[in-house]
C-alpha cells in the first residue's frame, strides 16, 4: 500500500484506477436486465411466497401433459389422444392470461414503485434497451407455458405412437401449428400485459385491471351480441379480448366453434381473429412504447 503524503494530510493509495478493460455491447446490457426479470417473475432466489403463483401455473401447464404421457407409456392400449392440441391450447390460454396478468406487472411496476429507474437510466441503458429487455423476459416466461408443454405433448405423442415415424409424418403440420399458435399467443399476452403494467406502478392494480378488461370485454361482447339489435353486430366478436386467442387457435386447427356461441354465430374465421389480435397488439405496443419513453427517473 502506497502512501501519498501532502501538506494537508495523508491519503492511502488503495489502488483506485479508471477501468480501461474491454466492454461488452448492448446485448449484454439487455440480457442482464432480461435475466433479472426472468428470475424475478419466476421467484428464483426469492422466498417461497413469490414462487407460488408462477410455479403453480407452470405445474398446471405441464402437469396434464406429463400425466398424459405417463399414462400412454404405462397403459398404451387404454390411452388414446384424450385431448387435442387445440383443446390443450385453450386450457393453456386461460393459464397464459393469469400468468401474463401477474408476470407483466411484476416486471415493470416495482422499478417505478421502488424508485430504481434512476439507477438503471444512469447506466448506459437506453429506454429502448429497457423495453426490449422487459419484453424479452416476459416473452421467455410466457413462451415457456404457451409453447413448451405443447411441444412436449407432441413429442410424447410421437414417441408413444405405434410408429413414431408414421405419427411424425402424418402430424408434422400440427407441430408447425403448435409453434405458430404458441408464438402468437405469447406475443399477444406479453405485449398486452406489459402495456397494462406500464400504466400504473401498483402491481395489484395492473393485474386486476388487466384481468378486468379481458373478462369484462368478453362479457360486454356477449351482452351486446345476444341482447342488442343493430346492423353489423357480428363485429362485436372482436371486442372480446379473452375470446380472440381461443377462436384463433380453433380456426388454425380447424376445430370449429361451439354451436350457438358468439364465435359460431359471428361467422369469422381464424385469420380474422389473427388480424384482430394484431390490431390489439399494435395498440398495446404503442401504449407501451409511449409510456416507457416518457418514464421519468
Amino acid at each position: 500500500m502506497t502512501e501519498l503524503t501532502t501538506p494537508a494530510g495523508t491519503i492511502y493509495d488503495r489502488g483506485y484506477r479508471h477501468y480501461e478493460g474491454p466492454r461488452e455491447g448492448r446485448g449484454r446490457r439487455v440480457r442482464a436486465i432480461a435475466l433479472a426479470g426472468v428470475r424475478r417473475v419466476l421467484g428464483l432466489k426469492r422466498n417461497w411466497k413469490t414462487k407460488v403463483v408462477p410455479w403453480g401455473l407452470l405445474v398446471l401447464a405441464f402437469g396434464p401433459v406429463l400425466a398424459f404421457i405417463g399414462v400412454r407409456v404405462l397403459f398404451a392400449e387404454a390411452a388414446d389422444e384424450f385431448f387435442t392440441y387445440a383443446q390443450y391450447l385453450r386450457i393453456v390460454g386461460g393459464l397464459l392470461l393469469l400468468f401474463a396478468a401477474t408476470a407483466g406487472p411484476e416486471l415493470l411496476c416495482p422499478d417505478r414503485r421502488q424508485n430504481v429507474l434512476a439507477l438503471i437510466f444512469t447506466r448506459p441503458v437506453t429506454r429502448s434497451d429497457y423495453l426490449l429487455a422487459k419484453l424479452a423476459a416476459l416473452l421467455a416466461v410466457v413462451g415457456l407455458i404457451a409453447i413448451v408443454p405443447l411441444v412436449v405433448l407432441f413429442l410424447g405423442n410421437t414417441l408413444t405412437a405405434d410408429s413414431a415415424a408414421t405419427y411424425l409424418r402424418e402430424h408434422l403440420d400440427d407441430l408447425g401449428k403448435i409453434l405458430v399458435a404458441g408464438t402468437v399467443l405469447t406475443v399477444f399476452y406479453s405485449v398486452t400485459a406489459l402495456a397494462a403494467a406500464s400504466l400504473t406502478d401498483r402491481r395489484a392494480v395492473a393485474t386486476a385491471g388487466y384481468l378486468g378488461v379481458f373478462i369484462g370485454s368478453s362479457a360486454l361482447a356477449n351482452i351486446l351480441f345476444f341482447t342488442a339489435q343493430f346492423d353489423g353486430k357480428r363485429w362485436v366478436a372482436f371486442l372480446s379480448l379473452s375470446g380472440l386467442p381461443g377462436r384463433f387457435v380453433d380456426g388454425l386447427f380447424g376445430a370449429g366453434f361451439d354451436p350457438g356461441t358468439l364465435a359460431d354465430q359471428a361467422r369469422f374465421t381464424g385469420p380474422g381473429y389473427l388480424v384482430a389480435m394484431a390490431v390489439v397488439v399494435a395498440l398495446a405496443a404503442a401504449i407501451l412504447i409511449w409510456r416507457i419513453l416518457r418514464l421519468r427517473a
Partner: protein
Amino acid sequence: MTAQAPADQTAAQGAVVELRRFSKWYGDVVAVADLSFELRPGVTGLLGPNGAGKTTTLKAICGLLHPSQGEVLLFGRPISRDPMLYRAIGVVPDGDRLYPRLTVRSYVRLHAELQGLTDAGAAADRAIAEVDMGPLADRRLKGLSKGERQRTKVAGAIVHQPALLILDEPLTGMDPGQRARFIELIRIIGAAGVTVLVSSHILGEVERLASQILVLVSGRLAASGDYHAIRDLMADQPRTVMVKADDARRLAAGLIALPSTVAVEVDGDALRARTRSVDSFATALPRLARDQGASLHEVRTTDESLEQVFRYLVGRR
C-alpha cells in the same frame, strides 16, 4: 468510442462537467435559474437547503432531465446525445433506490453487467471490498441498515471505476464510523483524479469531504469556491449560541456586557445570545458562570446549519 475516451478528453480539456447558463422550470415554477459552473477532478460539494435545486442540478448532469434553457456538457458533450458517456459516470441517487430482494453481490454485479464489464463478478467483488461490504456480500438488501444500503449503492456506482462520480446525499443514515470510512473512500477516489460531486444539506459533512463547494439558494448559485474562504467571508455574521443554566437571567446580564454580544434573549432556564465572536464568547462564558455561581447545563451554537449560511448568503445577494 472507448471507455477511457472521456477521461482522456478530460485531461486534454480540463472541465469534466460544464453547466452554461443552465435553467430548469416546471410550468411557472423555476427550479434552477441561470446556473453556470465547471467541475474538474477532485471532490466538490454541492450545498443547498431543501428546494434549492440540488437534485434538479444533479439530475441534469446525469442526463435524467433536459435543461429548459442553457447547456449541460459532460466531457465536452451533451449526455442526452451520447448515452455511452454513462460508461464514464457513476451515480448514487438519493433515497432508497434498490431491489430489496437482491443480495449485495447480485446488486453490484447487475450494475457491472449493465456497464458491460467482461468480468462482472470480479469487478463486483472489488467494488464491494472498496466500500467495506465484503462480510455482508451475500445478505439481502432489505435486511441491511440504511448506511449499509448506501454503501451498496456506492459500490454499484463505482463498480466500473468511473471518471465522474455523482453522489446525492450519500452519508444519509450512516453511523459515525461508516461516515469516516466513507469520507476516506471518497477522498481517495477524488485524489485518484476522479471528479466527484457530492450533494448535501449538512455543512459539516461537506467540510470533511470537499474543499471546493458550490452553494445553491433558491435555484441560483449563491457561492462557489474554497469552503474555508467562503466561511471566512461570513465571519462578520453574528452567530447564535444557546445556553442552559441554573440562573439564565443573571447570566444574561453578564453576557450582554461583553463587547462581542449583539443581543441576548432569555426564555426560562435557557438563553440565546447573538455574538460576533463565538471564540471570545466561549472563553468568557465559563468565567462569567463561575463568577456568578451559575451551573452550565448545555452550550451549543444553533445556527451552524446550512439554512443559516444560506440565509446569510441570500442576504448578501
